[in-house]
């Protein structure tokens, strides 16, 4: 950098710190929103009235007690835009993509310019990136409460927004990589490695998990279904944590921590080893979100083993962070930035220890679907991401506004309130998760029956859930102190853009490695052959696989021997590689592709005959499909799973364990990841239509239930007209709907709705009519009124859950050929269906169809 060859010249550059400032302010603003929504939905779990009913108390107080008669008394049991099911996706998306996303961009824009000694490649691209990202967030904040969702966790945004995300991400990537290209620093610092991995991997994950076919501007069906969708979703979901919430923050740690501590990074070689092992191994661990489910067991086992192997690489990051502070620990007493970083990194270590632990199948059997998992992710997002963000903001603010931090004391107070908040949060959910898990698994002395009603187990942890909500509130209060502190700092100073004199050296030999030199060398060759035989070890038939394993081990031993012998040349090669951003990025891409390819490509064919097991899901009727879309739209999956695991307590409580074939037509899958209510995989036929009808209106008929009431389902009309278009897309995706004309589809749906409505009217359920509309005067009118409502479609779907056809494993019909590569209706199904509907929910209902409305 300081070479003085004659060609060098000094130039002055101005860093683009405005973009950093904007991203930072955006992160803080969206952070408040995300946490506010989080606190609201946490309280909703304790008080169902928080789903909108509390407005009655508020407006009644204003109207009657304060005599503000112009404020109407708001008298409803719930507001659709405020239910847990719709707000929880808003909370997670805001926390991940708005809060941490903007924070990450702030850190990346700030550090990349300094590590490359250049201004960002293009101010225009930076601007588009910033404003595009904020626009995406605004759209998300509108669509999610409106019930427009894809029904897959952290991938809920609808398809037009998905396209925007892809475009903006590509613009970000372009800006970043072109900045690397014009850098004035010869070699890439470790922080940049992590940024590269982030950008490449998130793009790959996002695109694959968002493949879908639109049915309208706001709705689409994912191309994957059932187990495929589950696997792709958790490959994405798990690695969203890895490559959106972990690697960029590690990069930020590698830049901001040594800067703040004024100490060299602990170990360069630890950086190398933990970076490459982290990006390679992380990708494989996704299936640990699906342990003991219908997912093929070999995939579950891969998820478990790779999660265990992931522990050390994760801790490598923690060690390099904490040990960098050797010699600077005294700053822990005085500098709030160091405090936040130390606690953040410690939480990283804690949650990456907890992760592998939770990935062990027997631990997962207890913890999965409980609040323990919620506690675990929050020790990551609040403890690790949130505290790293705070540390970074407190360090950046004085630099970005040219004034020292307004109040160190206030920052210290933020630290302590936040720390107490997150500890209260995590600890109470440990207890809540374990207590609920044990209660759910408790059987009577004979071991043949579970003893606790589901709702009892939720009641038991009520206080702990309240403690969690209070912990979250503490954390929010702490964060508000940060808002004040940064605001005051910014107000007292003025925006500053750093200028720096740098040495321009045209003779600098960066990016000079040929592709050949990058890929044909000893380390790469040995890694390649080692991995090649390791994969053969996996997939070859018995006998040959043992040979492949031996060869793999042989290569490993030889590689170790060569490394010991040629340490210098290996190390020179790596130093050289880190001076070449393109070959480096390609190697990262290869490392992250491998795990996904090996798990997902075989799974695309997993729906083949042999893997349907003995059951094949019954195809939905048009009305049931409409009901399913309502289920997805209301976010029911946020509290209800549809997956009975291969565990005795699950089977005793919910019925026979779920088979692969039983969700084979579910676009998207709805296996769920959390049970605040019971599993619904076999809900169909367990209760009467009228039970569901009354329960949707007033879930308190099940004493102690926290479920929100859904009064709007009794007013909103089912969109029968959309069904033909939706079914056409499902058919293209390979779901064997019988061939029906659009009119037949609509008629079939209306007939089934009428049949359910007739039954309900016969049981004299209360019919709700909006004010001003005519009350039905006789049974026919009541029936016709009811039949078009969303609640009827939803009931038809709930009653369908768990219905299947037995199939003999041998003579599986061709319709279960792997489907996503074969869009369109297979010919062998075209002859099968007469014009009349071939599928109805339950056979005994078939005969009593009333006339068409």
């Amino acid at each position, binding site marked *: 950098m300081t070479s003085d060859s004659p060609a060098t010249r000094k130039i002055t550059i101005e860093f683009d710190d405005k973009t950093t400032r904007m991203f930072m302010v955006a992160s803080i603003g969206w952070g408040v929103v995300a946490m506010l929504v989080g606190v609201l939905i946490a309280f909703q779990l304790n008080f169902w009235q928080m789903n909108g009913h509390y407005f009655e108390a508020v407006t009644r107080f204003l109207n009657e007690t304060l005599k503000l008669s112009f404020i109407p008394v708001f008298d409803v049991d719930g507001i659709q835009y405020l239910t847990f099911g719709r707000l929880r996706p808003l909370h997670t998306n805001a926390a991940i993509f708005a809060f941490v996303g903007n924070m990450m961009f702030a850190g990346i824009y700030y550090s990349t310019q300094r590590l490359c000694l250049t201004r960002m490649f293009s101010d225009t691209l930076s601007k588009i990136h910033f404003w595009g990202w904020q626009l995406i967030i605004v759209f998300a904040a509108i669509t999610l409460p409106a019930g427009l969702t894809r029904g897959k966790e952290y991938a809920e945004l609808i398809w037009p927004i998905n396209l925007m995300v892809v475009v903006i991400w590509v613009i970000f990537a372009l800006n970043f990589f072109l900045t690397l290209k014009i850098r004035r620093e010869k070699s890439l610092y470790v922080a940049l490695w992590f940024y590269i991995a982030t950008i490449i991997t998130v793009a790959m994950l996002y695109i694959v998990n968002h493949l879908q076919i639109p049915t309208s501007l706001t709705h689409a069906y994912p191309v994957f279904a059932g187990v495929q969708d589950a696997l792709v979703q958790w490959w994405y979901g798990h690695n969203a944590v890895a490559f959106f919430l972990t690697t960029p923050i590690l990069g930020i740690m590698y830049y901001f921590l040594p800067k703040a501590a004024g100490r060299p990074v602990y170990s360069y070689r630890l950086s190398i080893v933990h970076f490459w092992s982290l990006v390679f191994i992380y990708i494989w661990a996704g299936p640990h979100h699906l342990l003991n489910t219908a997912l093929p067991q070999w995939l579950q*086992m891969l998820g478990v*083993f790779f999660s*265990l192997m992931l522990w050390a690489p994760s801790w490598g990051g923690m*060690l390099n962070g904490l040990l960098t502070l050797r010699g600077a620990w005294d700053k822990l007493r005085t500098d709030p930035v160091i405090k936040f970083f130390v606690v953040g990194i410690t939480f990283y270590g804690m949650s990456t220890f907890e992760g592998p632990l939770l990935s062990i199948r027997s631990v997962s059997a207890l913890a999965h679907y409980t609040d323990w998992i919620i506690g675990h992710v929050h020790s990551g997002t609040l403890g690790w991401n949130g505290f790293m963000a705070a540390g970074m903001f407190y360090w950046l603010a004085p630099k970005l506004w040219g004034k020292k931090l307004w109040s160190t004391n206030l920052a210290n107070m933020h630290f302590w309130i936040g720390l107490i908040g997150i500890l209260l949060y995590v600890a109470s959910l440990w207890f809540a998760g374990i207590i609920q898990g044990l209660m759910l698994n408790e059987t009577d002395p004979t*071991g043949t029956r579970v003893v606790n009603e589901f709702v009892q187990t939720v009641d038991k942890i009520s206080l702990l859930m309240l403690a969690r909500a209070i912990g979250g509130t503490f954390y929010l209060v702490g964060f508000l102190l940060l808002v004040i502190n940064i605001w005051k700092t910014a107000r007292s100073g003025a925006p500053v853009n750093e200028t720096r004199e740098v040495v321009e050296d045209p003779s600098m030999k960066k990016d000079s490695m040929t592709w050949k030199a990058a890929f044909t060398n000893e380390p790469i060759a040995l890694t390649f052959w080692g991995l090649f035989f390791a994969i053969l070890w996996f997939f070859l038939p018995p006998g040959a696989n043992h040979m492949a394993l031996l060869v793999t081990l042989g290569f490993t031993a030889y590689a170790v021997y060569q490394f010991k012998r040629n340490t210098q040349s290996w190390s020179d090669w790596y130093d050289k590689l880190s001076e070449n951003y393109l070959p480096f990025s390609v190697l990262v891409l290869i490392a992250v592709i491998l795990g996904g390819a090996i798990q997902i490509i075989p799974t695309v064919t997993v729906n083949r005959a042999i893997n349907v097991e003995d059951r094949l899901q019954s195809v939905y009727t048009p009305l049931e499909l409409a009901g399913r879309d309502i289920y997805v739209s209301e976010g029911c999956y946020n509290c209800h799973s549809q997956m009975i695991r291969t565990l005795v307590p699950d089977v005793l409580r919910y019925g026979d364990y779920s088979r692969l074939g039983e969700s084979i037509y579910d676009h998207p899958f709805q296996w769920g990841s959390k049970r605040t209510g019971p599993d619904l995989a076999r809900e169909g036929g367990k209760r009467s239509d009228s039970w569901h009808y009354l329960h949707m209106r007033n879930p308190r008929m099940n004493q102690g239930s926290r479920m929100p009431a859904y009064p709007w389902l009794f007013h909103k009309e089912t969109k029968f007209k959309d069904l033909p278009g939706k079914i056409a897309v499902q058919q293209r995706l390979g779901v064997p709907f019988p061939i029906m004309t659009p009119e037949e589809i609509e008629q079939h749906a209306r007939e089934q709705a009428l049949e359910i409505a007739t039954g309900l009217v016969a049981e004299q359920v209360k019919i709700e009519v909006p004010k001003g509309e005519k009350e039905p005067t006789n049974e026919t009118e009541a029936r016709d009124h009811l039949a078009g409502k969303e609640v009827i479609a939803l009931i038809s779907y709930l009653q369908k859950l768990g219905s299947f056809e037995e199939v003999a494993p041998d003579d599986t019909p061709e319709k279960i050929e792997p489907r996503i590569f074969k869009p369109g209706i297979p010919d062998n199904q075209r002859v099968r269906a007469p014009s009349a509907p071939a599928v109805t929910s339950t056979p005994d209902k078939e005969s009593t169809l009333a006339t068409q409305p």
Partner: protein
Amino acid sequence: MKPSDSNKNDIVLKEHVFDGIQEYDQKLPNWWLFTLYIAIAWFIFAWVAYYQLPFKMPDSHEKIDAQMALIESKKQEELDSMMASISNESLQEMSLDTSHLDAGRAIFEAKCIACHGQDLSATMNGIQLPGVPLNDSEWKYGAEPLNIMNIVTNGSPDVTKGMIAWNTQLSPAEIAQVVAYILSHH
């Protein structure tokens, strides 16, 4: 990275500097390395043991099938012995015994009132509940105590009516108690 240079324990400071950030090149902590090695070795060992040896470990489906078969046979035995000792008369007698009635009420309040109502009238605050009233004299599937016992145990013959089979949640003895509680209202 020159472990052979001079003393192995010297702390090497790398030459490069990035925006003022320097890097040591400390050796990797041994305990950390061994954690990684052990996890990898465990993976290889366990994978071979699970999937690549001539004998096959039972997979999760085989395990759960075996466990559930055992449970089913136990339940059947329990039911058989209960049914052998129970009759319409003995159930009527139980309905006069306060200890059985207290137990029966507790079960009824935990499991049944959602559909049949606190007072067995199948209404809650005047709203019709999905169940049939149990405090009148009309019995859809037979008025004998054993008929009632059968419905509670195995559920309604018409699944769409929503009366589920309670033998998954209640033991035969508990079902008898809850039947006794219902009978005590007649």
